[in-house]
């Protein structure tokens, strides 16, 4: 096993497994895979839809009204320290049995893909993990860690 392969692991949580369906979104020059069961919908973001508020985390863009409820709009690129233009679309995120809890900014509507058989996750401290094996510049959204971040 290569050193890289030894360094990576596939956490059991978050639904990451080869062959599983995930929503792939683009943000700047990066791609993010979102677990299918957590994707509650996709929407466009018109200019002014997001109200910025003084933020405690750099990856929080502001508040967006979604189904008569204010939800935080998150920028996955910013969570990796990258910058990207204002998102024009967003994915509504929520646990399968609960209310939506956040929106994830994207540059365009995403599309569903299957996680390749050789894909492995590199452990990260944030709420996105780099994917190795078959997918270039792609990260996996760790919903469990994100929920923990939002709930504190």
């Amino acid at each position, binding site marked *: 096993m290569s050193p890289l392969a030894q360094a990576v692991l596939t956490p059991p949580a978050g639904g990451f497994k080869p062959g599983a369906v995930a929503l792939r979104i683009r943000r700047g020059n990066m791609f993010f895979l979102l677990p299918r069961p957590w994707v509650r919908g996709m929407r466009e973001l018109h200019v002014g839809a997001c109200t910025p*508020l003084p933020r405690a985390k750099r990856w929080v863009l502001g508040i967006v009204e979604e189904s008569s409820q*204010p939800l*935080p709009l998150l920028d996955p690129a910013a969570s990796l320290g990258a910058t990207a233009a204002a998102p024009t679309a967003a994915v509504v995120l929520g646990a399968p049995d609960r209310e939506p809890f956040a929106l994830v900014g994207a540059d365009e509507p995403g599309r569903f893909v299957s996680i390749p058989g050789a894909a492995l996750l590199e452990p990260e401290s944030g709420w996105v993990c780099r994917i190795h094996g078959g997918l270039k510049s792609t990260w996996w959204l760790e919903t469990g860690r994100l929920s923990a971040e939002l709930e504190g």
Partner: protein
Amino acid sequence: MIATEKHLAGSLWLRVGGRDFSLSLERVRRVALCRQLRCAPPRTGVPSWWNGVTLDAGQPHPLLNLAELIGVPAAPTLAPDAVVVLGSLWQQPVGLVCDHFRGVIPAAAPSWPLSPNLFVNADGALPRIRLCAGKPVTDLAPEQLFSAARHTQFDQAMKDSKENVDQLWELSELEQKLAGAPSAQGYLDLSARYRKLGWVEEAERMQARASEIKGHAAPMARPAHGGLSGPCTPRVLLELLQVLRLTTKSGELLLDAPGRIAGSVSFHTGCIAAARCGNTADTRAALKELFALRGGRYQFFPGAPAGDTPAPGDTAAFMAELETLVRTAS
């Protein structure tokens, strides 16, 4: 603007530094524009959020600038059209200064907690968020804006402003007396006293009042108590103007708001020659402002004002406009 004599439920929707906030109506007594209040400006060396003291309902209310307290962009000076929410914090009467009043949010409007992990919540001063017309509005708990250090600054500023407040009481009483028996010299003296205290705006207002009286020979000679006087409401004011117009009167109608001269309307043979309200000298605008006054009194001093007779058509147009204004308001 609004008087909240009876208890209202819900929240005020306010705009501060480009952001929307809601403030529970529980401790709000009334909302006023800054120009409707008598304010003693702050002394030097006070915190930037201390905007001076105003007198309202017989009590000094320190003016606290919400933008400065929250940490959002604040106007450099206290604007005349700034909105002041008069109420109480820790049983202490205060006036919270904000940019705009946007409405009242019903008590039943749902709200959600604002995650302190994601957003700056000013040490618990911004605990929740709600949607109003599709826009997020942050709940404001103003007590939480005061740390122990700010409390100390507050107490000190309150102590230091005592002299200013006393002066304000005294000069307000003097001004009230002058409203009853106006004299150019009286206003000039008052202007000098205001200037000495560094209250330039008030000084200039008194100066203008003195010039106004000097420029009008007849009103200078008017008796201390005019022929017509009484409490003034928008409807009374409208009827009064109609009567003065129909009876082709000449003279000056003075309107006093509590503690100050609010403005005047000059009549020349039944036609409105001029109107003034505070710093507004444009007749149409001043008349509209005078019709927004509450709790005032009027006094009419007969006499011939200087200048030519104004066009009767203008008065007819003003009256039509004011009638619509009163009808709409009622």
